[in-house]
């Protein structure tokens, strides 16, 4: 069996390689890697096609994939936006099905595989049975790659030209706080009326030795917090001991990303907010009334 892995960016390709390895016995893996990376010491990697450029466009990537897709049973990539775009374009040209954000794989016989992926805003999962060839993007940490490996031949290639041109880049600023590993997370939503009011959540998080996260609009729309605070199916998944969504209505795309929390305590002044269905305890009260008093009591408690 032959797999083609798109390692873009190369640092995020581990799970794609791991998935490819699990597709069969002795899968031969060819890697298309960007950013000049040539080192993939994993079992089964026989060929590395290295592209010096760190930032090819999806159009360019899809053409590179097409060039090396002949005889390939599976095309695999990390579930990042550019890789997803590139793989989707290649899949259309190859006439093959594609499965996005796969987090489970079962091999069956006769060239068929069974994969599962999240759907319906992360509230459900679907399991597909598919023939090969097919394309897949894989969820982070779902398929750790196995070593050791070596002796892959390395070829350097130029990027093909494409219609679309990148004319500007602006790097995003991040806080560096890793909410994915935090034991306590305080979530802020649109119930907070001004950016300055976030200090209430920050103080609470500090008293509980936790981190502050948020729903999509707080970061993507309002820019009140950097995007690494975003809890959502398109943001970060958290699995703390305690998650406190405050002033968050409870959209499924947000709550699914917090479903692994051991305990969820919500605060929202709207009794009908969906968040209460996803919580262990829900306080129907205005956050502006509760938080100052709660914070004060926590402070007193700490002193005592």
């Amino acid at each position, binding site marked *: 069996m032959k797999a083609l892995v798109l390692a873009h960016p190369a640092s995020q390709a581990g799970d794609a390689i791991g998935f490819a390895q699990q597709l069969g016995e002795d899968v031969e893996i060819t890697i298309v890697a960007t950013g000049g990376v040539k080192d993939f010491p994993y079992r089964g990697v026989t060929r590395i096609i290295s592209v010096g450029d760190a930032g090819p466009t999806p159009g360019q990537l899809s053409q590179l994939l097409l060039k090396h897709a002949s005889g390939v049973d599976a095309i695999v990539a990390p579930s990042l936006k550019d890789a997803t775009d590139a793989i*989707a374009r290649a899949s259309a040209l190859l006439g093959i099905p594609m499965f996005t954000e796969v987090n489970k794989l079962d091999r069956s016989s006769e060239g068929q595989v069974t994969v599962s992926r999240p759907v319906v805003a992360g509230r459900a999962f679907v399991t597909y049975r*598919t023939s090969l060839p097919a394309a897949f993007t894989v969820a982070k940490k779902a398929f750790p790659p196995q070593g050791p490996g070596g002796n892959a031949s390395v070829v350097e290639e130029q990027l093909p030209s494409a219609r679309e041109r990148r*004319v500007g880049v602006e790097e*995003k600023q991040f806080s560096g706080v890793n909410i994915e590993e935090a034991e306590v997370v305080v979530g802020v939503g649109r119930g907070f009326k001004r950016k300055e009011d976030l200090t209430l959540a920050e103080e609470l998080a500090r008293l*509980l030795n936790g981190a502050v996260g948020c729903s999509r609009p707080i970061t993507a729309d309002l820019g009140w917090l950097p995007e690494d605070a975003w809890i959502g199916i398109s943001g970060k998944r958290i699995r703390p001991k*305690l998650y406190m969504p405050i002033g968050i209505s409870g959209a499924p*795309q947000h709550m*699914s990303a917090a479903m692994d929390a051991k305990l969820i305590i919500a605060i929202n002044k709207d009794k009908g907010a969906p968040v209460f269905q996803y919580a262990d*305890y829900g306080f129907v009260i205005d956050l502006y009334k509760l938080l100052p008093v709660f914070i004060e009591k926590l402070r007193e408690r700490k002193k005592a």
Partner: protein
Amino acid sequence: MNIAVLAKASVDPNMVRADSEGNLLVDSMPLALSEYDKNAIEEALRIRDAKGGKVVILSALTWGPLAKRQREAEQVMREALAMGADEAHLIVDEALVPGSPLHTAQALKALVDKLGGFDLVLTGEGSMDTVSYQVASRLAVLLDYSAATFARKIEVNDNGLVRVVRDLETRYETHELPLPAVVSVTGEINKPRLPTLLQIRRAMAKPLKKYTLQDLGVRLEGHRPGVEELKLLRVARKQVIIEESDPAKAAEKLIEILENEGILKL
């Protein structure tokens, strides 16, 4: 400019229903206009109002049973028309149910060809039910149009070029594309308008055409995967509601809970 918007009648994630084993009862879950497709429609309307032209809604029904879903899909089309689109075209065919992006894109390509092509095709970054993030990219290559995904901003210039700011994980990238182009948009690109009652009524008179795959002269190609399971990810939560209006009492209750649950030391 002739602008097409791919709008999907999606199963509503806020209206999930499952049986006692957690199997989704999809047939009883209502269809609604997919969230980010509303942003795509809004963007198309803004471009039309600035540049002139037409906004045409294209849709492929991918949920059954067809008899019931057809009516729901038509309602979704009327909602799009009520926002201000000029006409809607809906593909209804057993062969597209349940949906597979491989085939959905092939069907939509045939529809675009039948309608004579467009300058710009917009759609949401992904649908709110299956969230595959594939159809925009697939359709672009089938049509041989240029493409850009995850657009947070779109600027149509007068020189046949479109500038798109793409919202990626660690950065924003500005791409320049020649028309014709397919662009998928994020939820942050704009705030979709809410149709007025008058617009909703007017929408009933706007053209809505339906097609089978045979009408479009297309035969779907490639493997259709089978669905083995569609299940709820259930996490049992206590769902205890505390309606204490006195903040001091509520705070005390909250601390008590945190102590009992081992978050705060007793």
